[in-house]
């Protein structure tokens, strides 16, 4: 066993660590802010998105990084606090946004690929004033009709829909447009930060203006010229559909050749485009199109009340469990138990310090991991103390018994903990999200418990048994009658 000097060094180190932990938890910032809470504990939105290529090819890591940057920018522009956007695995992005007030808007905006396309409208059909529960059915009907139209050619054209609040009357105007498969002009021709929310000077309606590049302007001129020409031949009004992804935003009638200035309007509403819609449009257009298609594969919204009550019950459980374990340790092992209880308290405090320092985001499974690690930490002491008691019963002095107990117990603890670490590492490597949080806390808990339950208690007991303090068998929970009487039978 280490000398008294070594023991003092170990305990000095513990005091320093406690000091550092206390600084991190209480002094560096207000204690309520010290611990990062996961979405399940404080409420918020989290979504997992999967990227894919339109043609079905592989998505590269670079494209995913690019996409996650764009998504982060979009969320930042919404003015939401501290989003966490990460690429995970080959083709997934995890977005976590704590404490959002309008989760639906956020979810809506992050997944948009925002491919802007301008199309010449080849044919269209409208069903005005559709009640909201019939939209799907009406879309199917319109699709049927349009497929019969002469302008529809399988493989070369597609049908896009526009839904806008009814121009007159109530409900929704649903319009189907037959357009070419590929857009005649895409959002790549949009100038940097070329989308702006503005007001139409004549009607004072809210519009979104688009500023195209010079080349884009030329191509737009060609496209609009063509639309006008064809309209003159057919006698029907020539429309141009402006679509974001597969949704037509507006389909104005082209009356003059346009160049590099386009605007998206909605004159059917009294004030033009609704404010939030215009702002979303501006955001997704200016941050640019995502390089790949994004699909939301899982999505979670946790309300703040649910989060708070989960946190409360998790903490209650941990504290009650912890307190009972401390009491039981002292009851069973007396003086030894007192030392172990002290070590467990140190363990808990240092654990909190690490959670703040790393920082680990606390989630429900994380709390479960901590609760479990309390048991593991207590066990290391139980293994050693049982050994010590055995040695005391064989008639050894407390000092010699403590030494033997640690020497012999340590190997079992080490082997046992390594298997736990293996499971935790595999969990970490193969899983994601909250399961990872659990694995991380379990690893930290196991390693830290080896330190506090083996090194720290040993140093404490070393000092206790060496400094003229007389540890009687009774103080270690060994009854007098069993000393030397119960020699382990058999193999020696």
């Amino acid at each position, binding site marked *: 066993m280490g000398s008294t000097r070594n023991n003092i060094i170990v305990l000095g180190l513990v005091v320093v660590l406690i000091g550092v932990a206390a600084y991190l938890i209480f002094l560096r910032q207000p204690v309520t802010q010290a611990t990062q809470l996961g979405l399940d504990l404080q409420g918020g939105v989290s979504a997992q998105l999967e990227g894919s290529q339109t043609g079905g090819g592989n998505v590269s890591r670079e494209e995913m990084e690019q996409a996650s940057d764009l998504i982060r920018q979009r969320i930042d522009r919404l003015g939401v606090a501290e989003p966490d956007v990460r690429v995970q695995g080959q083709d997934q992005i995890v977005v976590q946004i704590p404490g959002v007030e309008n989760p639906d808007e956020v979810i809506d905006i992050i997944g948009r690929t925002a491919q802007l396309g301008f199309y010449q409208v080849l044919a269209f059909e409208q069903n005005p004033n559709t009640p909201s529960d019939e939209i799907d059915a009406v879309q199917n009907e319109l699709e049927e009709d349009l497929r019969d139209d002469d302008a529809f050619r399988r493989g070369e054209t597609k049908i896009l829909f526009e839904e806008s609040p009814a121009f007159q009357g109530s409900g929704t105007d649903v319009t189907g447009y037959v357009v070419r498969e590929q857009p005649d002009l895409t959002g790549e021709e949009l100038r940097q930060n070329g989308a702006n929310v503005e007001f139409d000077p004549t009607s004072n309606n809210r519009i979104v203006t688009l500023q195209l590049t010079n080349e884009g302007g030329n191509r737009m001129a060609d496209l609009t010229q063509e639309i006008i020409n064809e309209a003159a031949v057919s006698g029907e009004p020539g429309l141009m559909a402006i679509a974001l992804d597969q949704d037509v935003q507006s389909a104005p009638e082209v009356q003059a050749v346009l160049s590099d200035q386009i605007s998206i309007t909605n004159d059917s509403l009294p004030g033009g485009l609704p404010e939030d819609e215009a702002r979303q449009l501006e955001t997704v257009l200016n941050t640019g199109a995502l390089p790949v298609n994004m699909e939301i594969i899982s999505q979670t919204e946790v309300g703040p009340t649910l989060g708070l*009550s989960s946190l409360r019950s998790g903490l209650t459980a941990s504290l009650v469990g912890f307190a009972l374990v401390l009491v039981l340790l002292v009851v069973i092992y007396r003086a030894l138990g007192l030392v172990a209880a002290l070590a467990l308290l140190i363990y808990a405090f240092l654990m909190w310090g690490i959670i703040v320092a790393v920082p680990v985001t606390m989630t429900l499974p994380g709390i479960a991991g901590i609760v479990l690690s309390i048991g593991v930490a207590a066990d290391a002491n139980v293994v050693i103390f049982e050994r010590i008691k055995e040695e005391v019963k064989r008639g050894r002095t407390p000092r010699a018994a403590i030494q033997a107990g640690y020497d012999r117990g340590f190997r079992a603890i080490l082997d046992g903990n390594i298997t736990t670490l293996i499971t935790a590492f595999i969990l970490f490597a193969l899983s994601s999200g909250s399961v990872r949080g659990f694995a991380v806390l379990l690893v930290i808990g196991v390693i830290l418990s080896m330190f506090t339950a083996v090194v720290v208690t040993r140093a404490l007991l070393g000092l206790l048994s060496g400094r003229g303090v007389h540890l009687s068998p009774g103080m270690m929970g060994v009854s007098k009658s069993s000393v030397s009487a119960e020699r382990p039978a058999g193999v020696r």
Partner: protein
Amino acid sequence: MFPGVDFVGKYRRWFAISGVLLALGLLAVALGRLEFGIDFQGGAQFTATEADRQLTEQEVTDALPPGIAEESVVTTLGDDGYEVRTPVLSEQDSQEVQSLLAEALGAEVSATSVSPAFGEQIRNQALQAVAAALLIIVAFISIRFEFSFAIASMVALVHDVLLTIGFYAAFGREVSLVTVVAVLTVLGYSLYDTIIIFDRIRENAPTVGYNRRRFDEMVNVSIRQVIRRSIYTSIFTLIPITALLIFGESTLSDFAFALLVGILAGAYSSIFIAPQVLSLFKAWRAGSARRAPRSA
């Protein structure tokens, strides 16, 4: 402790106890009682907390939009909580359900949705994790102890995991991602517990020679030496877990339930299954080693 109990010799008795419990649990699984949550099959789940109005499950179902209501499962959580599970919904439908529920219950509604493809991915990940963990741990134990110890601990481990799953099914708890974490934790704990006993056997084992009677007696002694520790540790671990079971929300309590069963099973198997399998395996190998030269 337990000086009169023949742990090794009475292996048939211990195996029978486990066998009955395992059979009951696996029967529950076979009867399709194992309920998979949306994490594994995709779908949407809405959770309402601190509802102002007390509604019956039927009333909650009636509040849902027609078309979705028929396919939904409503459960009450505690006094003022409700949970509604539906198949995969469109973004629009999901928002509608969320606002209808919030209105009907006067509560805050949290929503989760998982696509079926993602559920499948999660399931594969979980299976991979378990397989990888088993392989690496067999290798580790074979190196630190011997192969026969690895075999015995694997049997104990499979026993614990199957028992946990069986009880989970019998009590109709819902299998979610958290359950997988719990099972993996049980796996870790079960091994840990077994290894503490094996460590004592390794320490007590004579370096040369194998004699079945002597070996079995030595295992008995080893178990007696560590059984008190096993009991204490199980108690120490079960206390915080029981607290989780009592105070925890539905997810946490599912997790705690799996741990509770798994840890009890782990404590039992490390004393009544693993050492016995080790002893039987050793005896079988010694027997076949003796027969081999004769037949050659």
